[in-house]
């Protein structure tokens, strides 16, 4: 269970937050009416879904109700950067992101 540093409230348990998917997907200016169906489909449905560093959004839904952005390693689950909406700091250097132990399933 993650310990997530809310930019306002400080470190709190994952259960207080909701995940908001990939960050920085701007809504097309004007509502996308000049886009092709494919372009619009990409905006609505296609996601980067990277293995490794991921810019994503969380909201402190059971706390201060604020949205914020993070950079998280989707393999190690480490939160490397946390920043407020409207900001976009550079990605940190990729830390050693070990392969998940290729261990037993069931």
């Amino acid at each position, binding site marked *: *269970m*993650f310990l997530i540093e809310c930019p306002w409230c400080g470190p709190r348990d*994952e*259960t207080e937050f*909701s*995940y908001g*998917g990939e960050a920085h997907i701007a809504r097309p200016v004007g509502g996308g009416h000049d886009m*092709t*169906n*494919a372009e*619009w*489909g*990409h905006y*609505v*449905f*296609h*996601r*980067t*879904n*990277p*293995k490794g560093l*991921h810019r*994503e959004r969380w909201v402190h839904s059971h706390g201060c109700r604020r949205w914020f952005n993070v950079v*998280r390693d*989707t*393999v*190690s*689950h480490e939160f490397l950067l946390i920043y407020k909406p409207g900001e976009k700091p550079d990605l940190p250097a990729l830390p050693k992101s070990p392969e*998940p*132990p*290729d*261990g*037993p*399933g*069931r």
Partner: protein
Amino acid sequence: MRYSIFSLARNALSYHEKWPEAWRSPAPKPAYDVVIVGGGGHGLATAYYLAKEHGITNVAVIEKGWLGGGNTGRNTTIIRSNYLWDESAAIYEKSLKLYEGLSQDLNYNIMLSQRGVLNLAHNEHDLKELSRRVNAIRLNGIDSEILTPTEIKKLVPIINVSPDLRYPILGASLQRRGGVARHDAVAWGYARAADAHGVDIIQNCEVTDFLVEDGQVQGVETTQGAIRAGKVGVVVAGHASVMAAKAGFRMPVESHPLQALVSEPIKPVLDCVVMSNAVHVYVSQSDKGELVIGAGIDAYTSYGQRGSFHTIEGQIGAITELFPIFSRLRQLRQWGGIVDTCPDASPIISKTPVDHLYFNCGWGTGGFKATPGSGWAFAHTIARDEPHPINAPFSLDRFSTGVLIDEHGAAAVAH
């Protein structure tokens, strides 16, 4: 060597010293007609049906770890075809039908146990959805029925049907042909049968890139060198986005942790699969006696093959509510898989922007039950360079045209 009680007895005489290997461990050839990336159940099934149905045997299955080690080896083994939409019903039913003869077809006992799958309803809205679903399933010619709480109790004596439950059981649907199968055996059975057709299964070999010329795939780059191929099929579940990125496009897919767990083995207490969407429960008892319990999907994306503990805690609260005798039993082992989910909770079995490169992904939490049908349809798509009518609806471009097959939307809750 054909597997049977006789070959078993014969080999017992030599203390099992003479069994041949179930599949070879060949070095990769420089080129194949078809390369399948991903040696899970779906990939191995694809290779098998390419050989069996289409006569294409110059095929390699390339697996970065050990075959069957991904979601095939990590799921809760449930098989069913009780889907709402016609498109889903068709492919999952195709799959179930293939499962019904699979042990014999592969000469490998996959232990298909058609013990029935029960889906519980806990409120009026659930009941209405259930009725809609069962009516549609029946009219698609697939077996399904509705049970009252009394009938449920008769089928599953240990379940709590008290009306005093916080979320009492008001009814259920039952697909008697649904059930479970031994997941590892499905992968191993397909591997052995594909190998027998001449398919090369190459383990511990990772595909690092695609060879593409003039918008057409020419093969793959791997940790064991380049392998050329006329066609490449990618079936890598949670890693679909990673492979798509190498090929230069994005997918409408996100990878999430899905956790599951088993209890210590106990003598038989549960004779069918019990599922409940409303309280997020699915449980069955394995042949070994373990209760196999599925947890919910974790909301965040992950490639870590593990989820959060509170997801499991919530699950167990609901389980012990429904099955009060489980409270004194103990969890033996838990694990996580990486499931690839599409926005409409339906899969993609499709051509891609790159010619002769095909993707099969997006099965989310439902991949195991689809293994034979998915492989069968994907083999057709690769062999003919066009989808079979059964998988034509599951194209990549539906996210542009809007022809979604919204399996979870169909369970939307409001009011």
